[in-house]
């Protein structure tokens, strides 16, 4: 379980479940300004690590709650010009509730959109250049509307090597880029390869990263693969 109600806290000012902390805060038995929110986040991340599973809904609930606490706390610490507006427990609860309801509305709308895209995915429109006589007429009517610098700047963006992602907190032993290069190299030599034959001798982690490299190559349109049955041979094809 990764539910927030399962999260036990051991802070200087409070020991007990997160749910209870919320209620205690709402009843103003502890001042929010004394609660180290960062420690709660770290405790929750540890809690996630221990449970070994990720219930996205529960995690999101936690995030919404902690975000609301952050905002309330920042309001306490940074008084507005008119002075601090004291939130009573009832008002604070309402505010928290309002947040949760607002989030829930859009997460339901998100499900509706996903379902709709899936349904509409079967509707295909024509995508074709205009017939040649219309194209000729369009060419005659054309005048300069774009600045050539626009493509020049875009080229400059593409030539810029992006900074490597910040991964100092992860000890990487196998690099995704390097695995992509290895697969590319092999596919250049022969158009098709057998995953087990090519990578079966590698350790599990390398195999996993190689599989991830394949996904990346697929999303770039460079390679596809086929697997006829579960646990069957995986054949990788250059595109």
């Amino acid at each position, binding site marked *: 379980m990764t539910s927030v109600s399962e999260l036990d806290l051991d802070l200087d000012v409070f020991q007990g*479940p997160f*749910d*209870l902390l*919320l*209620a*205690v805060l*709402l*009843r103003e*038995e502890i001042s929010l300004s004394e609660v180290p929110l960062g420690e709660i986040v770290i405790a929750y991340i540890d809690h996630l690590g221990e449970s070994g599973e990720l219930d*996205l809904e529960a995690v*999101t609930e936690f*995030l*919404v709650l*902690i*975000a*609301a606490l952050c905002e309330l706390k920042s309001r306490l610490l940074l008084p507005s010009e008119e002075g601090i507006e004291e939130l009573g427990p009832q008002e604070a*609860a309402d505010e*928290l*509730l309002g*947040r*949760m*309801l*607002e*989030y*829930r*509305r*859009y*997460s*339901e*709308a*998100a*499900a*509706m*959109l*996903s379902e*709709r*895209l*899936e*349904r*509409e*995915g*079967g*509707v*295909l*429109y*024509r*995508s*074709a250049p*205009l*017939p040649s006589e*219309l194209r000729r007429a369009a060419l005659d009517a054309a005048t300069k509307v774009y600045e050539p610098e626009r493509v020049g700047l875009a080229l400059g963006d593409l030539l810029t090597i992006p900074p490597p992602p910040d991964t100092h907190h992860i000890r990487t032993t196998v690099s995704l880029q390097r695995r992509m290069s290895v697969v590319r190299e092999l596919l250049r030599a022969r158009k098709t390869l057998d995953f087990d034959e090519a990578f079966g001798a590698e350790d599990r982690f390398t195999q996993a990263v190689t599989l991830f490299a394949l996904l990346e190559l697929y999303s770039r349109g460079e390679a596809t693969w086929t697997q006829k049955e579960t646990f069957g041979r995986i054949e990788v094809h250059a595109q």
Partner: protein
Amino acid sequence: MSGDGLGQTVEALLFLSPDPVSAADLAEAIEVEEEAVAEAIEGLERRLEQNGRGVMLRRVAGGYALAAVPQAEGAARRLLARPRTPPLTQAQAEVLAIVAYLQPVSRPEVARIRGVSSDSAVASLTERGMIEERGRTQFGAVTYGTTALFEKLFGLSGLDALPDPAQFDPTPEDERELRERLLKAGEQRVE
């Protein structure tokens, strides 16, 4: 131009145009009144349905467009090697919902509602052509709105065809339950 001839011309224009065309633009191009176009469109829609045709009329993105009938999808994907639009990730779907209903809306506002930073979902939705920059708030944050492609991909005749978001809100009972859950632990502590 006779009623039939008008329907024919409308169909030809919708066939040629890569984007949905509004009744006003059709009327201007054909040089007839908009009401006549509206009538011709209804006639066209009816005929396409009745005659078991391979194309159908769709009202999307503020205009009209022809689309292939869904039963041809499998064969069409084999012939044209066109992949299906990949599904939305959970994060993308949430951001898209917020942008669709609240546009123009800024990234910080999206993050406030979702409770997480949404930069990468915003970037992929932009790349996928579903949302685009609209302007800036008075504090300089970029605002976003949905595109015509969004309406086309989701089969919406316009933004007003989106369902009322209030229908996603919990029932008053559910709301009460949530509220009680928030205060419950505190009550226990009092005992």
